């Protein structure tokens, strides 16, 4: 029996005259791994901005674990268990890696966690991610891959029920991609549903149980990775006529 953790129905978002999303439906089941793909400008980032609360959709509604969160500000969604990482890492630059994790632990997870020592919890997360050795370094000085890991670690520290990972692997080497992929899979094994947005097809296909394809603000396909690969619409969207 699959229970949807997130249900978004009829999402429409306009910027002035430009329609970024048109009537998009999306659901994610508990513990599911969902891939979200589409060409540049197809509306992927807008969609997850609507899901995480960074933007409000003009039409349609979003439910998370049975609650309507359509008009809920982003921080409340984070507190309910919607976490996201950013395509371009946004560390809290004035803080150490460890302190970076304190923020979501103290805010997003505050009401839900049994109050163990925040530092211990943060160290646990860093250990899972493989950043423990860098705990006391300044976050602004991290390498590209560690920066991405910090993004995920911070999302993880919010103790999410749903993680939205926005191109966590762009620009990384093949080995680094595998590293990040492993982290996401491990996270998923602990019962967190994951929406992965990615351009690296190899990673998406390996990771996802189900894939949703957006093009020009509309959902054009949905199915297992295998189905998607064979879908002519998808091929046309990516390769053009």
């Amino acid at each position, binding site marked *: 029996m699959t229970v949807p953790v997130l249900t978004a129905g009829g999402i429409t978002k306009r910027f002035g005259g430009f329609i970024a999303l048109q009537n998009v439906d999306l659901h994610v089941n508990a513990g599911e791994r969902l891939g979200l793909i589409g060409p540049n400008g197809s509306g992927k980032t807008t969609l997850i901005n609507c899901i995480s609360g960074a933007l409000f959709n003009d039409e349609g509604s979003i439910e998370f674990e049975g609650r309507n969160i359509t008009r809920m500000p982003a921080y409340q969604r984070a507190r309910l268990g919607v976490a996201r990482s*950013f395509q371009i890492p946004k560390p809290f630059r004035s803080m150490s890696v460890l302190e970076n994790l304190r923020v979501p632990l103290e805010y997003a997870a505050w009401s839900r966690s049994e109050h163990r020592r925040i530092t211990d919890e943060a160290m646990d997360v860093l250990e899972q991610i493989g950043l423990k050795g860098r705990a006391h370094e300044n976050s602004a000085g991290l390498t590209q891959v560690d920066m991405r890991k910090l993004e995920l670690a911070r999302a993880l520290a919010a103790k999410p029920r749903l993680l939205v990972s926005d191109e966590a692997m762009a620009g990384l080497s093949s080995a680094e991609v595998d590293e990040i992929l492993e982290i996401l899979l491990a996270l998923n094994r602990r019962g967190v549903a994951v929406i992965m947005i990615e351009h690296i097809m190899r990673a998406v296909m390996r990771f996802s149980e189900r894939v949703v394809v957006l093009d020009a603000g509309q959902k054009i396909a949905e199915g297992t990775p295998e189905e998607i690969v064979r879908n002519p619409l998808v091929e046309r969207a990516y390769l053009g006529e």
Partner: protein
Amino acid sequence: MKGRAFWLSMVAALVAGLLLTHFIDNDYYFNALYVILQGTVMAVAWNILGGFTGYVNFGSAGFFAVGAYTSIALGKAFGQDFPLPIMIMAAALVCGLIGLGLGYLTLRLKGVYFSIATLAMAIVFETLMNNWAYVGGARGAYILTPDSHLWFNSYIEMLFVLMLLLTLGSIAISRALNASRLGRGLAAIRDDEVAAECAGVPTLKLKLISATIMGAMMGVAGAPYPYFVTFVDPASAFSLFVAVNAIAMPMIGGTAHWIGPVIGALLVGTAQQVITVTVSSELNVLFVGIMLVVFISMAPQGIVGLVQKFRARRAR
């Protein structure tokens, strides 16, 4: 441990201040010290929104002046010997509310809108005061203070001790804030607002809290001012120089750490007093301007940043 050292030095500062009033007879020193302390409260207050949260307030003079005018209005209504502590609390309330209101109007927008709004706010209030005859209007208001007060030799000694208490209080608040969960939330907002929001930080609420505290603290700094200068008119109370100092002092001291504005205020404030005595107040303004530009270009983290860098290098 850290806490104890802090509180010990707070008590030490207070005792030192009280001893000064006992041993020094020359009112001028208390005048100078009062100005320095007033600058310190302003700098600490500015830093709560500017340094901790990353929102620049150009209208510090507006909050300060409204604080001063709250006292004047209460003085007119209830007599000039109306208790100062109540005036201070009233000023905190009024200016806190202004901070909240202004924040509510503009803090949802990009930071520079807030900065410009603060500038506009100061001008709107200055115009209001210019036209409000009850508190003296454009011609200003006078306060005749008594020779001495309670157990102090002179009125200014009492004001000095009062301002010292307010300064220590605002430093304690700022320090507590800096180290707390709230402070970390503010720092997250400063570093990256979107990321902070997604990490569960209620950014608008925190910014409003921070703007309210800042406004209240500036009001507190302004409330005793009429009793200090004995003459207040809108042009001098809303003087842009107040606003520049409130920005320059934390910037020079360092904005990320609570001690930064304190160092900056003591240093710049003292230097200003010396320059006013020895050279001229014209150079005073130039001095602040150049210090500000030099520091933010060469040492953006201020003196605190320089010390940290130096320590890091030595530790290596």
